[in-house]
């Protein structure tokens, strides 16, 4: 037992900076890929839920169906294969098809994790949009909003709030699962373990540091996500606006300024 403590403190003293760099890399990759993945997911979710009317032109209908098929295929492929293989596939496969090779590991890693997260998010967003009450769409339509305005100002803000737990879930999964990126040489937190333990043969002490490190990261992440969720839910109470406030801010009772009431104004003509 005391041996373990000694080993851990030795490792930490010697490789602290390396571990911390690994943690930083993991966090940067997980955070940026989750954000990009969310954007991909939202785009896919919106595109998939554009209503197809029998009144639309045939070209528009075919186009919308095609989009749905492509998104479906994307989701199934990236959800249905291991991320570790996707990384290998893209990193080593691209040079065969295109005249490019990735010299930047960061680029590949962010692409792979983002695209993977996006596939999961696409389904969450689709479900989130479908769960919004039909009345919200009708209310927006009835005041003259088009599909994009309805989505942007009414439906998506509510969807985002509803799927926040799932975004958090994905983020925590990403913090852990970015560890598979060691396969293409990305030096995340787990890759550091391989490196350090390979150099000094202290497998268990290093794994102990890793375990504690990952747990701290995910606990911190879920704490922050809870806070964010609470904040998004808004205040639980509201303040009544006093008469003063209303008069001062807007001259409420005078609109429109010339005539007493817009209705009277309309009836004149």
């Amino acid at each position, binding site marked *: 037992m005391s041996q373990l403590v000694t080993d851990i403190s030795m490792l930490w003293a010697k490789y602290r900076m390396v571990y911390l760099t690994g943690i930083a890399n993991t966090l940067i990759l997980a955070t940026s890929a989750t954000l990009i993945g969310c954007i991909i997911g939202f785009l896919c979710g919106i595109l998939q839920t554009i209503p197809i009317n029998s*009144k639309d032109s045939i070209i528009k209908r075919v186009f919308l169906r095609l989009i749905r098929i492509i998104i479906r295929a994307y989701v199934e492929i990236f959800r249905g294969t291991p991320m570790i293989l996707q990384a290998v596939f893209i990193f080593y496969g691209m040079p065969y098809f295109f005249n490019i090779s990735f010299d930047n590991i960061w680029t590949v890693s962010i692409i792979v994790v983002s695209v993977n997260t996006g596939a999961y998010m696409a389904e969450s967003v689709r479900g989130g949009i479908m769960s919004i009450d039909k009345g919200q769409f009708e209310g927006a*339509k009835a*005041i*003259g909003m088009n599909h994009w*305005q309805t989505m942007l100002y009414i439906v998506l*803000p509510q969807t985002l709030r509803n799927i926040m737990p799932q975004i958090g879930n994905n983020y925590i999964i990403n913090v852990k699962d970015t560890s598979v990126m060691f396969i293409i040489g990305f030096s995340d937190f787990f890759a550091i373990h391989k490196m350090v333990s390979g150099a000094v043969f202290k497998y268990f002490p290093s794994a102990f540091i890793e375990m504690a490190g990952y747990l701290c990261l995910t606990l911190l992440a879920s704490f922050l996500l809870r806070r964010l969720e609470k904040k998004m839910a808004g205040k639980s109470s*509201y303040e009544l606006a*006093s008469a003063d406030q*209303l008069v001062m801010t807007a001259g409420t009772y005078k609109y429109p300024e010339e005539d007493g009431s817009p209705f*009277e104004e309309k009836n004149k003509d």
Partner: protein
Amino acid sequence: MSEHILEIRHLSKAFGTNAVLKDIDFTVDKGDVTTIIGASGSGKSTLLRCINLLETPTTGDILFHGQDISKGRLNSSAYRAKVGMVFQNFNLFNNLTVLANCIIGQQKVLKIKADEARKRALYYLNKVGMAPYINARPDQISGGQKQRVAIARALAMEPEVLLFDEPTSALDPEMVGEVLEVMKALATKDNMTMLVVTHEMSFARDVSTHVVYMADGVIEEEGDPARIFTNPENQKTREFLKRILNE
């Protein structure tokens, strides 16, 4: 000479083989307060939803100021902005405060500047007695209050005609009065053109200028409320009124 705002011509609507509206014909003139009454399932709400293009009519025309809207010449969003709608279930935007609910349409659809839109929103919220609640979210206010905000939201678009789809049906009995008061004020003081689907016979009789009785997707009888309520010509109307007024 009154001016036709809406003319409904031979409008029919079928869901599959189920014909809900059959050859509906009627006109809404400026300043009219028309109530549509009839039993549940008679097609009243569908008619209203067709007028606002929330449902696409199977056949027939809707003319807005003499212009056919179902042919798609007039942009349907622009048309909807001129025809306000108040729903049975309010349909307030849950992600926005009371004030923002009344502002968003003005800003995004009518492209009105923020401070002007705020002024207008406050003016109409004050009209329905909801100005003190501008900071509340829809889930924090009562049903009657929600419906009054929904009316203010529709009014803030300054529509030419306001459609009400059973505005008091989802409310607790003690909240029906406050909403009817607001509607009554709109009808009598402001001469708003209104088309109201309702089960509130007192509103139909005392406030409206024109009553339409519908049964099984057909307009059975229409006319002056005083005459319809005292001396209906149609047998079906008579039975319906007898049934509902004795409840």
